[in-house]
């Protein structure tokens, strides 16, 4: 299993908003344990899915120059279970973005039903943490994530990665 909790983007407005989609399937191992006999997508993984959706949006807004790390969950409220066979969409919007950080608001939907509201803060770690140094390469945005943007922003992500 790979640590990727969105299947594709269906909308991507650079620097503004993005919508990602995830299909939930019983092939995902953890659903068999969470909970036995009543499989639901864990809420923490929905937060991770939103962090990936919003994190890519924030990263792309600065050409993937920054290492974008989830720093704070400002809000996470859940209104319904997500079951195997469900398709959810993750809607993220940039609320504020600066040199050091970004804040996003988001909601997860299943069709027209509101599943969750999740607002996050991201840190651009090279401009934060009192000048602590991190590896040169952008270890946050790997090819796995960049490939999700194919068709939305051309080859920008992959060419940035290789330079």
């Amino acid at each position, binding site marked *: 299993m790979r640590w990727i909790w969105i299947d594709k983007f269906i909308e991507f407005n650079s620097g503004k908003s993005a919508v990602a989609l995830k299909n939930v399937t019983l092939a995902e191992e953890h659903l068999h344990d969470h909970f036995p006999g009543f499989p639901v997508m864990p809420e923490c993984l929905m937060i991770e899915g939103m962090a990936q959706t919003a994190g890519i949006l924030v990263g792309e807004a600065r050409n993937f120059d920054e290492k974008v790390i989830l720093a*704070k969950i400002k809000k996470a409220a859940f209104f319904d279970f997500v079951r195997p066979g469900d398709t959810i969409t993750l809607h993220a919007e940039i609320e504020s973005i*600066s040199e050091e950080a970004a804040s996003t608001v988001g909601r997860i939907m299943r069709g027209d039903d509101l599943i969750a509201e999740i607002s996050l803060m991201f*840190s651009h770690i090279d401009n934060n943490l009192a000048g602590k140094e991190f590896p040169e390469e952008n270890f946050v945005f790997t090819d796995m994530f960049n490939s999700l943007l194919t068709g939305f922003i051309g080859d920008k992500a992959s060419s940035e990665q290789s330079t």
Partner: protein
Amino acid sequence: MAMSREEIFEEVQEVLVDALGLDDDEVTEEATLMGDLGAESIDFLDIVFRLEKSFGIKVPREELFPAESLMNNPEFVSNGKVTEKGLAEFKAKLPHTDFSGFESDPDINKLPDLFTVKSIVNFVEQKLNAA
């Protein structure tokens, strides 16, 4: 229309309640952000973003919370104490903060106690008046 100090305080209070997950009555003017209210570094950025949105002002983080860059400068901080030069710099950079109690014993560990709810209210008041 100009906001009264009371109105500014109430708005700042709401910002801090939302950003730090507090109850209204915990956010008094004297409360220190780190010591009393448990704010961490990322919370300061969250607070900055929220203040910008609530008051429609631009808040460079360096202006409201410049301590990080000043504390790492050996000219300003030596042997765990803020030097005279440092104190002058802090005062210049932080006109919204009250240093009167700090001057007699400028222990670096007490620096966080200077960042109170009141200093944010002062900061916003000065920003709004300057606009």
